[in-house]
């Protein structure tokens, strides 16, 4: 008789906190259940408190991995973008979040991993490595990477310049980039405020862009970042 084939979960010998900090995180039944419940709750809040409106859902690709890029003005941005995806996709959607901000203390770590399913992005010491992790994420079919190329929340409500990292990530690949504009989040919950105010949120999703012909070089990366910023700015309707 053959031996049985045991295959322990790769992170089985880690503590729960180490498992949350780990990336990619391995599927966990309790975590997925908690995330599902939390997201239903977050969506309810976004609808009731912020009367969220999502325009252009039909532009979201169905059968392939894609990157969602948006302007960043508030902690509401990532939950609002997640809310514009189908609920069954929340375990495969990864908002990139600053590792130095969201992964340092337990309450924010728990929120960003359990609820938002954030990917720790090292924007200070080793952003190249984080971009590699993003690339691996996108190699798996039907993954969604959510990026805020400004790299931080805006302080005054204006959309800042996009950092070229996104260009290096997708230049020369067939991966579609979906530009999104989030309107109202700055008024609802700007940097430095403790509690969100009941302001209306509008998410406008644009048509996907592709940069298959671009080269992963500095000039092209900068051009892609500019093109994406323009695409986001062009979605501003009022």
């Amino acid at each position: 008789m053959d031996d049985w084939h045991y295959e322990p979960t790769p992170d089985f010998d880690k503590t729960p906190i180490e498992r949350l900090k780990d990336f990619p995180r391995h599927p966990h039944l309790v975590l997925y259940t908690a995330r599902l419940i939390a997201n239903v709750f977050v969506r309810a809040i976004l609808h009731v408190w912020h009367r969220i409106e999502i325009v252009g859902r039909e532009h979201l690709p169905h059968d392939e991995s894609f990157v969602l890029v948006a302007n960043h003005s508030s902690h509401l941005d990532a939950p609002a973008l997640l809310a514009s995806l189908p609920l069954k996709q929340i375990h495969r959607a990864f908002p990139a979040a600053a590792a130095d901000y969201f992964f340092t203390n337990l309450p924010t770590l728990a929120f960003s991993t359990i609820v938002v399913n954030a990917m720790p992005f090292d924007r200070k010491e080793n952003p190249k490595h984080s971009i590699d992790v993003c690339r691996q994420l996108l190699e798996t079919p039907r993954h969604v990477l959510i990026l805020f190329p400004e790299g931080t929340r805006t302080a005054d409500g204006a959309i800042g310049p996009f950092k070229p990292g996104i260009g290096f990530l997708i230049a020369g690949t067939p991966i579609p980039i979906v530009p999104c504009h989030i309107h109202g989040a700055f008024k609802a919950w700007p940097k430095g405020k403790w509690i969100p105010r009941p302001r209306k949120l509008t998410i406008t999703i644009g048509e996907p862009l592709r940069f298959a012909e671009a080269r992963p070089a500095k000039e092209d990366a900068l051009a892609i970042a500019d093109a994406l910023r323009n695409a986001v700015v062009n979605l501003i309707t009022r």
Partner: protein
Amino acid sequence: MTSDAFQSPVFRGYLFVLAGLLAVAGALILLLRYVLRKNVDHAWKAYRGWLIMIPLVFLALYFGRVTTIVFFTLVSIGAFTEFARATGLYRDWGMTIVVLLGIIAVGIVSIVPDPETKVHGWYGLLMALPVYAVAAIMMIPIIRDRAKGQLQLIALAVVGFLYIGWMFGHLAYLANASNAYGYLLYLLFAVPLNDVCAFTFGRIFGKRKFRPNISPNKTWAGAIGAFAVSMVFPWLVRFSFPEFGTPELILAGLIVGIGGQLGDLTISIIKRDIGIKDMGAVIEGHGGVLDRVDSLIYVAPLFFHMARYFHGL
């Protein structure tokens, strides 16, 4: 269980003894560390684990029957999850969910009253639950119309439910006994004591290996020493079960003294077969939940049926 746990002399007795033991052990570690300058990292980590676990258990018992059952059901869920993650059963969410539902059912059946007698805890259904759980587990491959590799999944799920869910579930059900504090606190004290004695006697006198292919650190000296302590222990804590006569006390000692080590070795077999050291890392200094409760799983149902046979619950 009474509405105020402090009115129970048994609860007060164990609380007093354990608080004392924790204080003495803490002082001893401090003495070793700062006066004798010994390296006590390992002992300190294990001690910190106890410092969290012991108050947790007392809190659960203090709040009454339902909290106690919920607490042990959660422990059981944690232990099974570790088992599933270590063996790879966890990749099959269907099987995992069915077993988890079975474990939750064990908890619910322990809480609800028997529809006929109106006594807390539906004993008949608890004894019948393995039938339904195994039947549900067998159904999954059939629903999926899949055969390859399914026997392993079925076997792992059945062991997971029967051993970690149902047998361990007997411990939670003891909260319904008229002498709940006595039985629960005796088991929760005597079984870890048996483990600690096996470790200590093994360290001091151990030469000949006990079961080298299963657990290389266990020795005959440890096993015999722990057995001796466990045989005497029921007499030392006789206030826990005034209704017990000599035969019951001897049986209680035998069940803990032999069953405790068998339970420990049972989980060691699983770990050794898979090729891992600990079942998890939830409790620092102790490993996983399953590493902590391994002996209890084996002992609890044996003690349960012994006590029930002689005195009813």
